[in-house]
């Protein structure tokens, strides 16, 4: 390479864009979280820790925990389903696998709102499931299915399952079949082989999928708003409200900041799991 400046020249428009419209705004959020809310919305530029403290107020901490619970549930179930599906795809003949994977991921690329809406169609009071129940002869009042916590969890699972399938398929397909054969050869049953060899070796895929679903779910506000009904609050809805209705930006920023910390922590944990499984580092003698 004759000139070292040229690549930088190519990169700089994009990097400036990212700096100006991603880095700076995100830093701004960090700063906002430490200012006081103005009398009529707006921001008063005096330093305070009140917003951060307010996040840990039982009222809001509870919403945080609730969101974490829902996100955890969705991530947990999606991980199990996604792993099973990925395992099944990896067990199919090689030449079928990429087509199966493609169709498993295809829904992921259609509109999020549309996918969520599909569940409103299924679950609403005049929806398909209720009609189906009537049709098989179920009489009487059916419990409401839409606007429940379960509906939110189902919606989240539905939306993010394809990603878990992808992230679990990657390590499963890379698994050398001789490794499981070696385990069988040494006397292990199919189940033992799965539990002691296949699962531990493919855990990073599950961890990636779990963290991804969790992170996207805990900050989600679309699914709770649509499938959870108006009253149902998750952190995402709370943030949304601070910015668009309550006009308490510093508190919204503080909420987001804590949310981002939680997400970063999880992503780092996941990176550690991936690192651990990709071969122990020296001194790691179990």
């Amino acid at each position, binding site marked *: 390479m004759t000139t070292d400046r040229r690549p930088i020249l190519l990169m700089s428009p994009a990097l400036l864009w990212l700096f100006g419209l991603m880095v700076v705004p995100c830093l701004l959020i960090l700063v906002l979280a430490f200012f006081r809310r103005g009398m009529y919305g707006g921001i008063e530029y005096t330093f305070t820790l009140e917003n951060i403290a307010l996040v840990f107020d039982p009222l809001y901490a509870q919403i945080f925990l609730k969101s974490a619970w829902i996100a955890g549930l969705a991530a947990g179930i999606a991980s199990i389903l996604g792993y099973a599906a990925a395992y099944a795809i990896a067990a199919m003949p090689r030449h079928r696998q990429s087509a199966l994977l493609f169709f498993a991921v295809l829904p992921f690329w259609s509109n999020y709102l549309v996918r969520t809406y599909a569940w409103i169609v299924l679950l609403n009071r005049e929806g398909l499931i209720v009609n189906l129940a009537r049709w098989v002869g179920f009489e009487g009042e059916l419990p409401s299915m839409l606007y429940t916590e379960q509906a939110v969890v189902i919606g989240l699972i539905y939306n993010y399952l394809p990603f878990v399938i992808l992230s679990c398929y990657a390590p499963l397909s890379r698994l050398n079949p001789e490794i499981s*054969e070696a385990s*069988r050869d040494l*006397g292990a049953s199919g189940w033992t082989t799965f539990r002691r060899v296949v699962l531990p070796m493919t855990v990073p895929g599950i961890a990636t999928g779990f963290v991804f679903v969790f992170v996207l779910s805990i900050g989600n506000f679309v699914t709770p708003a649509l499938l959870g009904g108006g009253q149902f609050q998750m952190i995402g809805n709370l943030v949304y409200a601070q910015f668009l209705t309550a006009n308490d930006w510093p508190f919204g920023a503080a909420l987001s900041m804590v949310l981002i910390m939680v997400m970063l922590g999880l992503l780092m944990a996941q990176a550690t799991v991936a690192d651990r499984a990709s071969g122990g580092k020296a001194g790691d003698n*179990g």
Partner: protein
Amino acid sequence: MTTPLLSLRDIKKNFGSAQAVAGVTMDIHRNEFFALLGASGSGKTTLLRMLAGFEAPSGGDILLEGSSIAAMPPNKRPVNLMFQSYALFPHMTVAQNIAYGLEMDRLAKAEIKSRVSEILEVIQLGHLGGRKPDQLSGGQRQRVALARALVKRPKVLLLDEPLGALDKKLRSEMQLELKRLQHEFGITFIVVTHDQEEALVMADRVAIMKDGALLQVGTPREIYEYPETRFAADFIGVMNFLPVSVASGGYQGKEGPLIRAADAPELAAGSAAVAAIRSERLGVETQGENSLAGEITDIAYHGLDLLLHVKTPLAETPVISRLTADVAERLAPEVGQTITLGWSARDTRIFPA
């Protein structure tokens, strides 16, 4: 008359329309070190995988001590396989890898522990029990894979190219090591290799496979001295082939005197055949019924020995003569020189063309 340890009865394996193993019948005896030798794709791995239980035979039967194991799942067979890729569990330490098979046998913790440390000593990796496989060298990994299969004391240990991934020096060390371990543990070994030298060095008996079938089974000496087919002759050692036609009392090359052979198959007079002579039996000072003159085109060192490439009127390609170091030193051959090579009728093998 004892029953053989392992009997293969007309074992076959088809993958779709392709036949990977085409009816193999043979017996393997207790404490035998048996080598399966064959070119790439000849069906060696497939045969081993059927013995280990990973492929169901398309036909035929496998008997272990007289009873069929063909339908037995791999985890129930008293047979272990050392994989060509080693297939070590990357998330377990060396000691955990080795203990795995013993845990499957539900042995007591204390016994597992003592047997693992015992075998770690045997393979001289006592200090590395706590390492993970990716912290080991290729040779160390190979020994862990071996130990993991060996520690279960199977009736038969199958080894698929156990030394394939090692460099030449380590290979020859490990060949002796394998033999020592086989003696020490008194376990029957079936080793797959495509290195003929390795098979001859290690094995009590060698089988040569081609296109899924056995060409010849015998001791290394039998295989080396009395190859039954031209393919077997070519596969082992360095063999010179001269095209000839069958005449009365000998074999006529392109020109020159009749070539004599001591024992040869019955072939119709006038039919085409090949005479085969091993390079080390074709000598400059060798006294014998046959002789052949030509010009040295190339000289190559092979260890201490010298390989002379000699262009003769009898064959398109130069014949190769192997001289031991002392002979080579005395004669000091040079490229371009014309020499006469001789060999005995006992060392001539005749195959139909």
